[in-house]
């Protein structure tokens, strides 16, 4: 099977190179035949990479320990769904997985555009396959997952099959972790599609409405998946790493946030181009930046230039990524400058207090956040290069600088949608903002009286109330109009209102998700924790909770040995939960890890860790965290995903416009003889 995988890689490389060249030539010569050939080669690329992935996955599932990668990341006793996840557990497999997802996106793009956007497609295919070729080269020559184990003996070098593998990293043996990398990679990889369309639009000078519409849709999907992937990663950190938090501003975490932030800026500023024909250069720049940051994030995770708990082992892959990043930047920026004349704004701004200005401020704050995270993440490398001093830039820096920016963004999340296009009058401002401000002020006073005195937490909750009232007010105003005009009940009115304009109201739902996320973040200011040594009968108290240790049990299964603490939790004297934190020792990898016990509620999570055994007293070291409002982070993420899905559903008016556009395109193609 190693040979099958290797053949798949070589064939994919050949298809990729052919598709890249044929796409470019087909576009230059405007040849439909050569373009079709390039598209078929992109499908061939997908097929061959799929073959390679199937080969590797087959070897993992059948415990073929001739293969070095399988021996490194899997073992016989690993559960099946963790074996599936072993495909992306290591550097080589995850790069192959990245390439496979790129091939899937490419195939989808080719299939979706088989009878439209024919002038763009040659260059779209060229860019997609150019990226695919780079990754296939990397997989084949630098990080090949199809190396066989061998042993040197008197008879010479001979193939060798290990009796068992090292097993999956224990930190990765957690259910949400199975889908976290696929989501994240789908997000990273997906950003190549809007980039490809943007480059094709620049090359062909087709910079009208079409490319921005395509690019916006193709950005929303990876943007949603990247956001979900980031939150799943936070959930993993919370449930597995055992320190009671979900975000540590780790360099790899930051690397995933960067393209998401710039993608968010693009999804907002694109509305200005669609409505007013403005900010065209800005939007192209954001698409380039988002793709650049996606590749940069991939580079950061794998190059070893920054230290991280999440990073793959150090490798020599860095210089290749650096060259690729330089090529992307040079190519795209040069093209942008050459096409500046075609990207002139069709209108001017009318007022500082307008939705356009609101989006501009929103964009600038998002980009300031991008710069802050980028600068802070890379500063240790820069410091070493400039002053030969090793420094660390961690959570205290990011919390201090990023949180105020985040609060400004939260404010704009509520205020922005209520500003009118072109100019908002003072009467409009009064009408739209009086109620939300009043409710937020009352809420703020109540919070202060209830003991919320931490500045950032108070401001977060105050702004969350303001934004929530702004957004819910929009739903209410629209629904009320429908209830009067169409005689619908409230729920019917909200449903029909949303379906009539899914982009707008789906966007509002996304904003509600963001508000819930911020509410969850605010809870971090009220964390409490305690630690103690416990044996059977011992008691630990924290806030309103009392934890009693009912004993320790030990056991094992084929995968790991465990020690489990049996903890009974009561709250204000009443039964609350039975919690069983564990300490595990994974046999195959010889690594310990903790299994955190979490009892979540909407108000707060009780989080119990068996941190170890005290060598002097032989008692269990139990650490307890009370984490307020964490549940709202996961709920907010779910609402964010729902809202994005809703925004992608074509509304009735959009469907009619799409039908008209398709009829137009068919007429044009019939005229051109395509």
């Amino acid at each position, binding site marked *: 099977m190693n040979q099958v995988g290797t053949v798949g890689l070589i064939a994919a490389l050949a298809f990729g190179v052919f598709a890249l060249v044929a796409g470019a030539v087909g576009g230059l010569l405007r040849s439909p035949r050569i373009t079709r050939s390039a598209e078929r080669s992109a499908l061939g690329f997908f097929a061959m990479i799929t073959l390679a992935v199937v080969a590797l996955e087959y070897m993992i599932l059948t415990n073929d320990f001739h293969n070095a990668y399988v021996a490194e990341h899997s073992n016989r006793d690993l559960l099946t769904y963790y074996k599936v996840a072993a495909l992306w557990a290591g550097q080589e497999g995850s790069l192959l997985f990245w390439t496979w997802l790129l091939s899937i996106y490419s195939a989808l793009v080719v299939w979706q555009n088989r009878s439209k956007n024919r002038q763009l497609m040659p260059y779209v295919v060229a860019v997609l396959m150019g990226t695919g070729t780079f990754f296939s080269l990397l997989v084949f020559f630098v990080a090949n997952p199809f190396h066989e184990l061998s042993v040197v003996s008197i008879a010479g070098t001979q193939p060798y099959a290990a009796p068992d593998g090292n097993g999956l990293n224990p930190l990765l043996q957690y259910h949400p972790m199975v889908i976290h990398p696929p989501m994240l990679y789908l997000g990273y990889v997906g950003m190549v599609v809007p980039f490809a369309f943007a480059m094709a639009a620049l090359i062909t000078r087709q910079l*009208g409405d079409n490319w921005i519409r395509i690019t916006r849709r193709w950005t929303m999907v990876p943007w949603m998946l990247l956001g979900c992937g980031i939150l799943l990663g936070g959930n993993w950190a919370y449930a597995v*790493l*055992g*320190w009671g*938090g979900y975000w*540590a501003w*780790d360099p790899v975490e930051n690397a995933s946030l960067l393209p998401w932030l710039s993608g968010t800026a693009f999804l907002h500023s694109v509305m200005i181009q669609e409505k007013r*024909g403005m900010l065209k250069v800005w939007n192209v720049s954001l698409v380039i930046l988002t793709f650049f940051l996606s590749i940069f994030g991939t580079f950061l995770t794998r190059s070893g230039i920054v230290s991280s*708990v999440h990073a793959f082992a150090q490798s020599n892959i860095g210089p290749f990524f650096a060259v690729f990043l330089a090529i992307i930047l040079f190519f795209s920026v040069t093209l942008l400058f050459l096409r500046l004349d075609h990207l002139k704004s*069709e*209108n*001017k*701004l*009318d*007022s500082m207090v307008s939705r356009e*200005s609101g989006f*501009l401020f929103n964009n*600038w704050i998002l980009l*300031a956040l991008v710069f*802050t995270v980028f*600068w*802070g993440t890379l500063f240790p490398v820069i*410091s070493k290069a400039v*002053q030969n*001093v*090793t*420094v*660390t*830039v*961690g*959570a*205290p*820096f990011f919390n*201090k*600088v990023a*949180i*105020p920016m985040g609060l*400004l963004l939260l404010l704009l999340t509520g205020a922005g949608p209520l500003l*009118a*296009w*072109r*100019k*908002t*009058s003072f009467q*409009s401002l*009064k*009408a*739209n903002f009086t109620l939300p401000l009043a409710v937020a002020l009352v809420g703020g006073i109540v919070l202060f009286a209830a003991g919320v005195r931490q*500045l*950032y*937490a108070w401001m977060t909750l105050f702004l969350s109330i303001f934004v929530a009232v702004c957004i819910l007010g929009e739903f209410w105003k629209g629904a009320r109009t*429908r209830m009067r*005009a169409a005689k619908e009940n409230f729920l019917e009115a909200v449903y029909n209102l949303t379906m009539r*304009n899914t982009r707008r109201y789906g966007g509002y739902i996304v904003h509600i998700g963001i508000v819930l996320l911020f509410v969850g973040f605010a809870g971090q200011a009220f964390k409490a*924790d305690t630690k103690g040594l416990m044996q059977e009968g011992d008691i630990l108290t924290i806030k309103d909770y009392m934890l009693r240790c009912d004993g320790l049990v030990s056991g094992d299964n084929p995968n790991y040995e465990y020690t489990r603490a049996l903890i009974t939790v009561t709250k204000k004297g009443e039964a609350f939960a039975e919690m069983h934190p564990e*300490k595990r020792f994974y046999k195959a990898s010889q690594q310990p890890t903790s299994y955190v016990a979490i009892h979540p509620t909407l108000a707060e999570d009780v989080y119990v860790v068996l941190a*170890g055994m005290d060598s002097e007293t032989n008692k269990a*070291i139990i650490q307890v965290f009370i984490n307020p409002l964490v549940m709202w982070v996961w709920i907010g993420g779910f609402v964010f995903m729902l809202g994005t899905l809703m925004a992608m559903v074509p509304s009735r*008016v959009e469907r*009619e416009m799409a039908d008209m556009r398709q009829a137009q395109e068919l007429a044009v193609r019939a005229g051109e003889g395509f």
Partner: protein
Amino acid sequence: MSGGRKISVASIISPASTAGHRGQLRSGFTVRPAVGRAARHSSVVTRHFWLSSLLISLFAASVAFGDNRTKPTLESLGNQLMCKCGCVAPLNQCPHFDCAEKAEMQAFLKKEIAEGKGEAVILQDVAQRYGLQVLTAPPARGFNLTVWVLPSIGLLTGLGIVVVVVRRWRHKPALDTAPGSTGDDPKLIRAVEEEMKSMRMG
């Protein structure tokens, strides 16, 4: 709609009001008189100046002060120091059981706290003992100052540039939006759809 402005549905959906001429409605709006424009402009500039100054001051204060604690505790210090064992995690988050490096650092911190030293002094002593990289954020001096200053300068400068660019780009306002209007009035959308429907059936 109030304010003496009349906009016909036909003018909104006419071809001239779509591609290439976005947002420019054709019929029936009044031009504001020039009297008092300079005075209004001056008061707007003054308002913007004080608003910007207030925002800048609030932002700078929040960055400078944020949620500072004054009394050092093992936990507050542990969040500002990296564990030396190589786990790449803050001291309080070191995942290693019975970590000897963590225990040694915590013993040193306890001694410093017991001596009544302030947080800044303790962090300085720790950095001298273990090296600058043990701090989770570099001290704000020398080249390290850039990590603190550049993001704030970038944000505030950028916001200032946006304000200047917006003011330079904008037209004199040619129409006033109706009170309470957010540009996507459901009534208006329904009226447009009905007219589109009648155009298709016609």
